[in-house]
């Protein structure tokens, strides 16, 4: 899109000009999934140009991570893609584990896989809910929230939090599953495939849904790779790339699952891919639960895992705490991250989430870089939206499944 100044020049310079109709969509708009702002140039209702403006949710997570130790960084990662925070936790933990050369116990790996897939279900359910709501189907929204609520309650039983779990630790997980949780998860994976049918009966063969999604936002496989799409958005175009298969982490090499792909690369195919993925996720959870019973009683945290303690608090920083000099400070061990760099990438629900850490041998990372799927996907919106109508733009934002916390970091 042309910068504003140039546009003004053109308008003033020529005698007869047609004023382009600009629409500013967002940052407060019901279907931009957060605080995405889009500057749209319209011709009637057709989109001529579309420019995403991001940064409204920037919190400087990468910079902030440089001041925190590994376990604190994981809590920070909850705030990236807050819909599926455990997936972010896993990515961060993997990077630090590779850097610190920590072996994760098998039981912890299985538990991580389960919670990752639960996070995927949470994310996909929320995606389906909002995507359908954007296109106008309000009932699917509440059906999806019904199951998501159940998952969140299980999460609450696992780690006490519903949204920002912080459940994963460098070297394992925070605590073991209770038998009650395992039971409830078994119940969930038993019931869930039937619930998916609920959504599909409302949408799959709905003529309006088909009209609104087929042929909308088509991306060819080559173009999808060029745009940097990952996750279901890429697989919808027929590229079977899945980090869980290509570079297995945690317990993904132990379980069997399919990587569903689409054919046409349109919104409908991406919808179908995600629906299939939900079924696969349920099956992965079930397989992991079966394996979990083999490892009953084993530790869920590596012995080499760094302490949860804060960096050593210096006396001179807070002299007020020791007015009479009698309070003895507990000495807190500084966990040194060995010098070097490490890279970890996972299949987050929205796409490939990668973390790159460099350490200079102190207790905090020297630099931490995050590659988030939403950021890349937002950059694909102008390509996808061009020539479509406003109503399709909403469907396209939905189909790319973006979260602004993820993109703005």
């Amino acid at each position: 899109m042309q910068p504003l100044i140039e546009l003004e020049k053109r308008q003033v310079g020529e005698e007869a000009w047609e004023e382009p109709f600009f629409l500013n969509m967002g940052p407060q708009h019901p279907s931009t999934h957060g605080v995405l702002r889009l500057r749209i140039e319209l011709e009637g209702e057709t989109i001529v140009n579309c420019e995403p403006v991001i940064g409204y949710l920037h919190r400087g997570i990468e910079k902030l991570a440089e001041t925190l130790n590994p376990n604190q960084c994981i809590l920070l990662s909850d705030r990236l893609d807050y819909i599926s925070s455990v997936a972010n936790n896993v990515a961060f933990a993997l990077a630090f584990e590779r850097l610190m050369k920590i072996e994760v116990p098998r039981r912890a790996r299985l538990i991580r896989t389960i919670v990752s897939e639960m996070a995927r279900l949470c994310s996909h359910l929320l995606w389906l809910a909002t995507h359908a709501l954007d296109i106008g189907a309000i009932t699917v929204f509440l059906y999806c929230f019904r199951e998501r609520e159940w998952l969140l309650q299980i999460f609450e039983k696992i780690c006490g939090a519903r949204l920002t779990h912080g459940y994963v630790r460098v070297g394992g997980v925070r605590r073991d599953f209770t038998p009650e949780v395992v039971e409830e998860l078994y119940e969930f994976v038993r019931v869930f495939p039937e619930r998916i049918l609920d959504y599909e009966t409302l949408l799959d063969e709905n003529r309006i849904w088909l009209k609104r999604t087929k042929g909308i936002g088509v991306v060819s496989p080559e173009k999808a790779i060029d745009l940097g799409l990952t996750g279901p958005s890429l697989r919808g175009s027929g590229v079977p790339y899945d980090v869980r298969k290509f570079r297995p982490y945690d317990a993904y090499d132990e379980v069997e699952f399919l990587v569903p792909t689409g054919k046409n690369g349109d919104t409908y195919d991406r919808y179908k891919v995600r629906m299939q993925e939900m079924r696969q996720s349920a099956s992965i959870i079930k397989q992991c639960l079966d394996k979990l019973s083999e490892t009953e009683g084993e530790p869920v945290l590596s012995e080499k895992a760094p302490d949860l303690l804060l960096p050593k608090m210096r006396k001179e920083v807070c002299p007020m705490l020791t007015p009479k000099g009698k309070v003895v400070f507990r000495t807190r061990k500084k966990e040194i991250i060995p010098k070097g760099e490490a890279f970890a990438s996972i299949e987050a629900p929205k796409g490939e989430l990668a973390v790159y850490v460099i350490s200079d041998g102190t207790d905090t990372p020297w630099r931490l870089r995050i590659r988030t799927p939403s950021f890349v996907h937002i950059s694909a919106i102008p390509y996808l939206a061009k020539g479509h109508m406003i109503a399709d733009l909403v469907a396209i934002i939905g189909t790319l499944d973006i979260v602004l916390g993820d993109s703005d970091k």
Partner: protein
Amino acid sequence: MSELICLLICSVILLVIALLHVAYLTYAERKIIARMQQRLGPNRVGPRGLLQPFADMLKLLTKEPIIPYGVDKNIFVLAPLISLVCAGSGLAFIPLWSNFVLSNANVGLLFILALSSLSAYGIILAGWSSNSRYALLGGLRSAAQVISYEIAMGLSLLSVVVMAGSFNLGDIVRAQANLPWKAFLFPQIIGFVVFLISAVAECNRVPFDLPEAESELVAGYFVEYSGMRFALFYLAEYFAMLVMSGLAVTCFLGGWLGPFSIPGLPFFWFLLKLYAFLFFYIWLRATLPRYRYDQLMDLGWKLLIPLAILNLFLTAIIKLLV
């Protein structure tokens, strides 16, 4: 003089009844959709939330009416009134029972059609005067919608007129008395389907709620409205639903006629059919996604209008032969 007073009183009674219907239609909509979506719906105000419509009304009445900067003030104030008056006054022509109608006009059907087209002006003007781009787009969509659907609706009703030989709604009902099922439903099944779809579009209801499309245009044409003016648009929508359902019942389902008459409850069959239609509207809203604006025009021009014309020809030919 006494006639005029009588008419006034009757109008007021009709208005009150209609308003009560609208109030509880909003309540019913929220409750029914809640049930369909496994929620509870309003249940705080009064027993089972039955006083919710009044609470809402009070809230909206006491809100500050904001007129944003840069709007065309006169039109901005007038638009919701146009919408409401045009949508609501159609009720006067719908016969609840034999001869029980406020205005037994001979051109009742035409009048309702004229008024419902006019009510779209309220929406277009609101969109135009709001000085907001979303509202403008909503208004434009409404204009596109009106030209695509009014014709199909008019044509489908015209075949009913051909069958009945009258524009008077009472006469149309009486013409159905001798038919099987006491309704034009089966001889006019194509017309009925066309009318049904157009009526939903006429009321700006899902799946044709494009002018207000919440997820695209935020609230479309009434995005800048607040307080009671905002409520007037809502009232207009529900009045339009009542009128369109009433029209469907009168023209296609045989109005007050039923399989047997119930003593003491002359309106029973009419209201039963009316409520069934209103339920249908609500049901649609819970089930269907929204059409896109060009797809809606496609549907209107390429499918409904040809169908309605075909139906009209068929009806006319059969009428000639029989």
